[in-house]
């Protein structure tokens, strides 16, 4: 794999404004979606836990814009951004968060279990690192079937300390599978600094030790994420086997929407706020000549869209209770019934 080093600040006037204005739109849509999801807690619309990815939008946008609709994506409990960027319908997602009819999973899964197979989104996951072995299997099937599609599996920095990380990466390498593993490193494993719980030089080195080409990049720089993903996917398509990306970013909220995250160093938070991926991309686009009006439109359109999504989702009915019994399995009666 040839490594192209590209950065926002380095792009200057050469920034592909068409591509990255679209990226800005995506990032604002994610930001707006999640801010409204968090706000909805005031109205008790989101019911269970939600894990916002505010501050991490460059990863979702930069990765997913390089994927075809039929390529497969696996995500985590912090998966709204990935799912939106992969092309899932925002209204169906918000309905899912509110547990309503017409939700992506019929209201049965909620935030942590959103999947949209129509756009190749094979699921968020409530179990840390569980998606890694599943991604290896999906890639295995694509290879068996001789398909050209590829798999991208995104997980957090905390996930690399679970066994499935080793097993999934090793498997992918041994079977030479078309899967890109992305460690979206936001510094935290719930309320703990991941660094305090992780031995050695980290995610990329672990991947390299198993023979996977791995690159560590600034995950708040969408140009860098975009270029690195493009490279990695090209390597997959060239049959070079599994690839690895380590995107360094920061979780601007608590672990869940109700976590005040008082355990963070305020100076650290400020430092990262200054590196907000949306602000940085806006600056770069401005320097490259994109008009103020277009930059503003990216933001306002996103919030207008999501306000409408919010209102519609709020006014949607609950799902039919019969759904509780649907899609469990084909055979067998779920009820213990009296003999008659």
């Amino acid at each position, binding site marked *: 794999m040839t490594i192209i080093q590209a950065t926002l600040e380095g792009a200057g006037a050469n920034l592909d404004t068409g591509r990255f204005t679209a990226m800005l739109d995506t990032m604002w849509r994610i930001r707006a979606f999640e801010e409204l999801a968090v706000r909805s807690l005031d109205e008790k619309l989101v019911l*269970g836990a939600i894990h916002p990815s505010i501050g991490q939008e460059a990863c979702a946008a930069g990765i997913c814009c390089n994927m075809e609709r039929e390529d497969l994506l696996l995500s985590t409990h912090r998966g709204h951004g990935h799912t939106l960027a992969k092309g899932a319908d925002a209204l169906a997602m918000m309905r899912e968060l509110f547990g309503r009819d017409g939700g992506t999973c019929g*209201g*049965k899964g909620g935030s942590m279990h959103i999947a949209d197979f129509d756009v190749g989104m094979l699921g968020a996951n409530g*179990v840390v690192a569980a998606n890694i072995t599943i991604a290896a299997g999906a890639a295995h099937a694509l290879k068996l079937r001789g398909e050209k599609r590829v798999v991208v599996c995104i997980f957090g920095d905390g996930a690399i300390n679970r066994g499935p990380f080793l097993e999934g990466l090793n498997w992918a390498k041994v079977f030479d599978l078309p899967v890109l593993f992305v460690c979206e490193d936001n510094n935290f494993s*719930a309320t703990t600094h991941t660094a305090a719980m992780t031995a050695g030089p980290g995610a990329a080195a672990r991947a390299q030790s198993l023979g996977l080409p791995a690159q560590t990049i600034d995950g708040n720089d969408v140009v860098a994420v975009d270029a690195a993903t493009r490279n990695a996917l090209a390597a997959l398509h060239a049959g070079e086997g599994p690839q690895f990306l380590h995107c360094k970013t920061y979780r601007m909220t608590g672990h869940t929407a109700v976590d005040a995250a008082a355990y963070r160093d305020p100076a650290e938070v400020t430092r990262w706020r200054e590196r907000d991926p949306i602000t940085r991309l806006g600056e770069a686009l401005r320097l490259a000549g994109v008009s103020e009006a277009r930059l503003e439109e990216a933001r306002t359109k996103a919030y207008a869209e999501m306000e409408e999504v919010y209102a519609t989702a709020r006014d949607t009915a609950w799902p039919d209770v019969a759904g*509780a019994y649907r899609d469990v399995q084909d055979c067998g009666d779920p009820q213990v019934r009296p003999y008659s």
Partner: protein
Amino acid sequence: MSVISYLEAGKRAVREEMQRDPTVWALGEDLGRGGVFGQYKGLIDEFGPERIADTPISEACIMGAAVGAAMTGTRPIVEMRFSDFALCAIDELVNQAAKARFMFGGQMRVPMVVREPTGMWRSSAAQHSQSLESWYTHIPGLVVVAPATPADNLGLLKSAIRNDDPVVYLEHKNLWPLEGEVPEGEHLVPLGEAQIVRTGRDLTLVTWSATRHSCVAAADALEKQGIEAEVIDLRTLWPWDRDRVLASVEKTGRLIVAHEAVAVSGFGAEIAATVAEALHHRLKAPVQRLGAPRIPIAYAPPLEDEARVTEKKIIDAAKALCLPVAAS
């Protein structure tokens, strides 16, 4: 007596046992910050980070390391965060912890407590809501405990920590804020002893964990309708208090077992079968099990509710069983 919450009671148990026995320690994710529900809050200040150990997200190693540490002279308290995540460490628990003493010919014991917050809790959906106690009751070598009140959480957790075999300790997430009286001073509840929560002559309601509270409410309502239900909280599922249950059903002649877990292969089946075997001739009505339908737990509240054993379901079942009593 003082009034504290179920959560505080669990914390007090850990604190008292850690003060009493320097070999007791706890390990799990986010324990330094007090654990995901705050059930360890402040303990790190008192005992330090070596005895309240923050771990990586490595359930298999948390459990496996506890097995090794338990074999080597300490008493680990394993925090699994949600019982659902204990499934990432089931080999370490079932193949290792539960069997080591037997396999190795009794050369050592594995004194560890595995805390697994369990059950339905405000739209947590299919991977954060399960009640899997019957899996553990099936495994020789494990003790299984499911407290329903602050006093029991205090007394049973202390007994669990002192127990020399591995204990799966299931605290119900919905009960964390529940307040109740607990005795001052040392309070131990023996493992394996059920509690008769209220007495009655018409019907025995056997239950545990959060469903205990639905059963008590149902029994209160039934009393007004002329049906006296005896409510027994098993508290410990293995070993379970067979004698107390059988004595009660011998008296009442009617049994309902009510639990939150899926009814099929739930632990209620064991109790129903035992009663049918032992008291067939004394039963005035068929034994009845109330549990969840065999469905994963959904996120949307109306669907989630389908899985619940409610007070109303208990009342309806009791009335159906006791029709002649109510009529008389």
